[in-house]
């Protein structure tokens, strides 16, 4: 079984909601990224999205744009991020890790080589915001029947009649984007967010996670009966910056969020 699916099955067993974070690889450097991943694992973060910095992150708001830009300036690359993955997996980090990246990075690396490398390096899933349903065939084919790396599907408040076909190929969890547009807009969810999440949840066989614009567990109280977990990206990056990327600060935030999320 894939590591994400395994972790989510265990949470279901415990009737717990998942807490998922996003960090940019190589921000401010790989040593810090490694320490923050380790601290989060210990603090109980269920899944970590590791952002691969790209020069043109069209699905991201200002916070993650700036994070990507800075990471690239500091020398972050896909190859180095693979090395980090290999290193932490060797050292026993077992938390599921998903690459959040843009499709050009995959193509540039080469489809087959990329998929093989993900599998070897312990990358459990892929989130690619500029690869909608219609363009996924070649990558899904390359991922083949392998269980080690799965493709995470995104749905949006305006996906409507597209939802069933997307869910049909979804694995792991469904990433429900809470608002139109890009990452990191303050908790200003789409006006029909509840009916949208309810509809996706009703149709989905796998857990449903909500992301975009979440800062605290309290933000998701209105949808606590619907969703199976929350994803925090831009806010987490901002917090890490304020705290000078101290692993302890990351751990503290994650521990608190996770506890509050399950007490809602």
């Amino acid at each position, binding site marked *: 079984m894939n590591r994400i699916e395994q972790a989510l099955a265990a949470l279901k067993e415990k009737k717990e909601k998942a807490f998922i974070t996003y960090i940019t690889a190589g921000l401010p450097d790989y040593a810090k990224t490694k320490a923050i991943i380790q601290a989060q694992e210990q603090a109980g973060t269920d899944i970590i999205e590791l952002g691969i910095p790209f020069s043109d992150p069209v699905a991201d708001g200002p916070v993650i*744009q700036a994070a990507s830009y800075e990471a690239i300036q500091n020398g972050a690359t896909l*190859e180095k991020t693979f090395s980090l993955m290999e290193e932490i997996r060797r050292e026993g980090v077992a938390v599921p890790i998903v690459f959040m990246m843009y*499709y*050009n990075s995959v193509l540039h*690396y080469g489809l087959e080589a990329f998929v093989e490398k993900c599998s070897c390096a312990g990358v459990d899933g892929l989130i690619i915001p500029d690869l*909608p349903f*219609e363009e996924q065939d070649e990558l899904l084919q390359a991922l083949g029947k392998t269980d080690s790396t799965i493709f995470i599907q995104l749905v949006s408040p305006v*996906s409507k009649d597209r939802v069933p076909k997307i869910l049909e190929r979804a694995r792991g969890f469904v990433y429900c984007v809470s608002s139109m547009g*890009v990452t990191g*807009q303050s908790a200003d969810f789409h006006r029909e967010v509840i009916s949208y999440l309810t509809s996706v949840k009703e149709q989905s066989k796998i857990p449903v996670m909500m992301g975009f614009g979440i800062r605290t567990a309290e933000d998701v109280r209105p949808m606590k009966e619907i969703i199976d977990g929350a994803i925090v990206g831009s806010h987490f990056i901002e917090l890490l910056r304020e705290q000078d990327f101290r692993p302890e600060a990351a751990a503290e935030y994650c521990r608190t969020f996770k506890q509050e999320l399950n007490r809602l």
Partner: protein
Amino acid sequence: MNKKAYYGEFGGQYVAESLMNTLEELDAAFEDAIRDPKFMEQYHDYLRQYVGRETPLYYAKRLSEAYGTKIYLKREDLNHTGAHKINNVIGQILLAKRMGKTKVIAETGAGQHGVATATGAALFDMECTVYMGKEDIERQKLNVLRMEMLGASVVSVESGSNTLKDATNEAIRTWAKTAEDTFYVIGSAVGPYPYPKMVKEFQSVISREAKRQHMEIEGRNPDVVMACVGGGSNSIGMFAEFIGEPEVALIGVEAAGLGIETGKHASAMALGAPGVLHGMRSYLLQDENGNVQLAHSISAGLDYPGVGPEHAYLRDTGRASYVSVTDAEAMDALVELCRLEGIIPAIESAHALAYAKKKAKEMTMEQSMVLCLSGRGDKDVNTISDYLAGKGYLN
């Protein structure tokens, strides 16, 4: 995979899930509109009465004599607002109106597409926001003033390289947030399907006219058809009607900046590799880590790291060939046209002129070449005078 979104292996719709229904809606509305005689009649009416079409196919006698073959200039520089960009804007804004949108957004590099969009928005009473890189705002001040006079707000984009590529990113982000009431007017033959098709449709008036005009004068098709290529809108419009005429050689001219070998250029076809940017798969300038590489050209309108997907396809199938000329070659040709014909061309168009000079060496006075003079050089006078004074230019 949506096959109709592709030109061979190029094109597609590499956008966020939240834009997919928007694109489908747009595609349906576009296909419906171009089959509606009333819509097309309205479009052509505006091209006639407002834009000032048709534009002349001018036989440049002195230039022809100097270069050694018959050169016809398709005078898109004589259009209202000074370039071919307005052809496409009128089409897209009429479509936006038809779809019930009240706002338009656009990206702009040199500012020509921004000015055209601001013009169309004023004409059709729509709210208009133009995204422009901070760097481009500085080097194209005149066009910023024009856009503001026309009632548009110009947003300075300060991310990445602060140029056209980043302005396009920002326009896409805004569109993803506001697609319900906002129409994104893309100015080049780029972006997710159906944009490349739409831009070609609304720019193909260039070659429809030119083909007939050349036939009337010469009684046959031209031997060579040539245009400059940034994203590729004037060139795809110039090629459109000739693609099915195998005896006509199609040549796209990219910007070689300081020279291909220096790495400071904008020749996606010459040195790019297939990649994904701005919703499309096409040739793209990238660094060794797969990040998009900055393009470099004296011409803001050609300063783009990618190229429209149909051009990539025309290149790979061999139907069109793509070459590049340097800043210096383009500026020499620009001055030559000023002095020989009394026409100040846009620096973009001067790239095509520069290659015409080279190509003409293989041709005779019996043969003929049609060249798209895509815009006038008024917007470039500062850049040109700085360049001639040896001060270099801002890039």
